[in-house]
């Protein structure tokens, strides 16, 4: 099924490119397609795909970035999820963690509920809102050639950074991550903190 989006990029290709040679990167994915996308790129202990808490992905990334200031932290989420927590852009701009990047895969639709149009399909400009909030590095990505520089900027950790990536509104094959939240949390803690994570 292909709905009309102003974007032309393929979401899985973008996510694969952003997660290539990921190094110490920790990744939070908003619920729905972004969680399937990071899993399609290869499940990883430093991935936290969300199954709920819509609107929370960016604030989870903020807490993690503040706790791990020397590690790049990437939040990959959708336009619908970001629209539910827009205030967090202001909170992030004020807290200013340089190692935090928020990438919104913007297909201008709510994918999980049947591809209804989001506000970004009606002209709402998330990149402009991020700039207005005071996020110092903002990328508006429409071309494939802009993806590699975005990946490099994420690893540079001189943000906070916000990127709006305009993608096609394709409904792709589901690639489901584990859905036991305690396992997902514990494995990331162990990957970051070592076995003593469970003795804290």
């Amino acid at each position: 099924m292909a709905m009309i989006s102003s974007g032309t990029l393929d979401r899985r290709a973008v996510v694969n490119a952003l997660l290539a040679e990921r190094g110490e990167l920790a990744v939070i994915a908003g619920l729905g397609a972004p969680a399937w996308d990071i899993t399609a790129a290869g499940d990883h202990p430093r991935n936290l795909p969300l199954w709920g808490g819509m609107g929370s992905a960016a604030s989870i990334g903020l807490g993690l970035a503040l706790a791990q200031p020397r590690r790049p932290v990437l939040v990959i989420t959708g336009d619908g999820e970001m629209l539910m927590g827009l205030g967090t852009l202001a909170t992030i701009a004020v807290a200013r963690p340089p190692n935090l990047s928020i990438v919104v895969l913007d297909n201008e639709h709510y994918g999980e509920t049947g591809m209804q149009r989001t506000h970004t399909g009606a002209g709402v400009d998330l990149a402009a809102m991020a700039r207005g909030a005071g996020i110092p590095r903002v990328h508006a990505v429409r071309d494939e050639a802009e993806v590699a520089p975005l990946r490099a900027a994420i690893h540079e950790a001189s943000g906070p950074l916000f990127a709006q990536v305009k993608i096609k509104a394709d409904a792709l094959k589901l690639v489901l991550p584990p859905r036991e939240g305690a396992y997902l949390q514990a494995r990331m803690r162990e990957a970051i903190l070592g076995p003593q994570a469970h003795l804290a």
Partner: protein
Amino acid sequence: MDVAPAATEEWPGALFALLKSHGIRQVAFVPDAGHSHLIRRCEEDPDIKAVVLTTEEEGIGLMLGAWLGGERGVLLMQSSGVGNCINMLSLATLHRTPMPMIVTMRGDFGEFNPAQVPMGNATQTVLEAMGTLVRRADHREDVVPTVDATLRMAFNTFRPTATLIGQRVLGAKTFGKE
């Protein structure tokens, strides 16, 4: 503005010492008169990241992120803010994340403002409905031991916990009408 504890009250300073003794490194809040002393102490401490939120539900996400990265967080809020957190509290249950909350009550004991009553009256019920262990402190001497228990139960048993500091401790604002 709401009612702030008098500068002569000792419990706000003791609460700060308690947060330090529990190794709290991230303190999230929406500005609140009842928590104003504690917030100021946290903002002045170089080892604490004091994070100002636009809405309390961001604090739930923040505490999950902090825990993922090996830091302990706490959320300070007013009872009205609890209503903003309801769905996000599912994150604590789903992931088994320690999420201690310290809530200053409105609409609770001698309230003047009718708008504060519906959420104040529902605060404990909705927190418990979302799996939070709730304890109340209705006398000033109970505040520190109750928050201590709330922090211990969060980090020792991996769940959302809350202390509700009653309006009887804080006093009710009367807008000049006695």
